[in-house]
């Protein structure tokens, strides 16, 4: 099956903006992603190390409601399902490792994991990621969210020549 072209980026963006606005109105909060990872890690920590680990100040805030009642975990499950539906309907669902023209599959997987580790740590320090800080907090004009946006893009552009072999 031939895959369809992507939607216009401005239309996709307005769509996301309306979803975010609906979240503000319905739930009094915005969208997010990294917070769900925190909840999953906290639940995993307790499962592996036992209930004694639940008192740790790093995980305790993420154990309040139970993983299947957590707003961000449910939201992120929805994100995955929505992404799958869109890709499948557009004929874009297939198994692949997407990478730059000069990078092998192993190198790309390793880079993905390393980038993920940095994002995990960074999102913890920042108390959110591109969804919870840049979009949700950015649209509310939160000072910290705009500091996050500045730090994120400035660093990515600054390091882009060093990372050139990954993508060009």
């Amino acid at each position, binding site marked *: 099956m031939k895959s369809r072209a*992507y939607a216009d980026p401005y239309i996709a963006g307005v769509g996301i903006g309306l979803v975010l606005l609906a979240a503000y*109105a319905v739930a009094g909060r915005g969208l997010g992603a990294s917070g769900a990872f*925190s909840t999953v890690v906290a639940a995993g920590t307790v499962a592996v190390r036992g209930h004694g680990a639940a008192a740790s100040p790093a995980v305790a805030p993420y154990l309040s409601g139970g993983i299947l009642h957590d707003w961000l975990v449910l939201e992120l499950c*929805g994100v995955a399902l929505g992404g799958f539906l869109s890709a499948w309907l557009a004929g874009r669902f297939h198994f692949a490792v*997407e990478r730059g023209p000069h990078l092998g599959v192993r190198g790309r997987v390793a880079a993905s994991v390393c980038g*993920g580790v940095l994002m995990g740590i960074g999102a913890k320090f920042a108390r959110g990621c591109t969804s919870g800080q840049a979009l949700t907090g950015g649209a509310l004009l939160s000072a910290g969210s705009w500091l996050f946006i500045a730090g994120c893009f400035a660093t*990515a552009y600054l390091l882009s020549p060093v*990372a050139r072999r990954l993508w060009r």
Partner: protein
Amino acid sequence: MTVEWAASVLGLAFGFCLERGGLAFAPKLAAQFYLTDLTVFKVMFSALLTAMLGAFWLDKLGLMDLSQVAMPETFVLPQLVGGALFGAGFLIAGLCPGTSCVAAASGRLDGVAAIAGILAGVAAFNSAYGWIAPFYASTARGAIGFPELLGMSHGLGVALVTAMALGGFWAAERIERSRA
């Protein structure tokens, strides 16, 4: 509709829009940083603009109470440093946490690898929390907007972001055309 259902439905729409815009395809996201495809900026800032202007005007018209929406708290240095670490990771992985999930859900194994990395990063942060905690809690400013911090009205902040985004869209179109 319970709030839990709302979370899943809103997430579904969010993920659908991200994939539609091409943000499950890592090389397209990374191209943002080489200025050959500015889709990330366009999607992100048209979303931010829509939500910001929508919330501002619904609040002005009395249809929504913006003070009831949870504003993320500001921690100046941790958020700058966190943003920098995050930006480096975003460049290397070509995906962010939300788009990693969309990439994985559309069959892309680089998305799965990024998810594994994020989980490991969060776990590493938690393990080191004891000695990270003082910095993590430092330079706290509470839930404050940048207009308030700079002594301007919220409306002026909204106008400035709008002008910056529109200028950015104009520049993005020019840059893409010049590199085509």
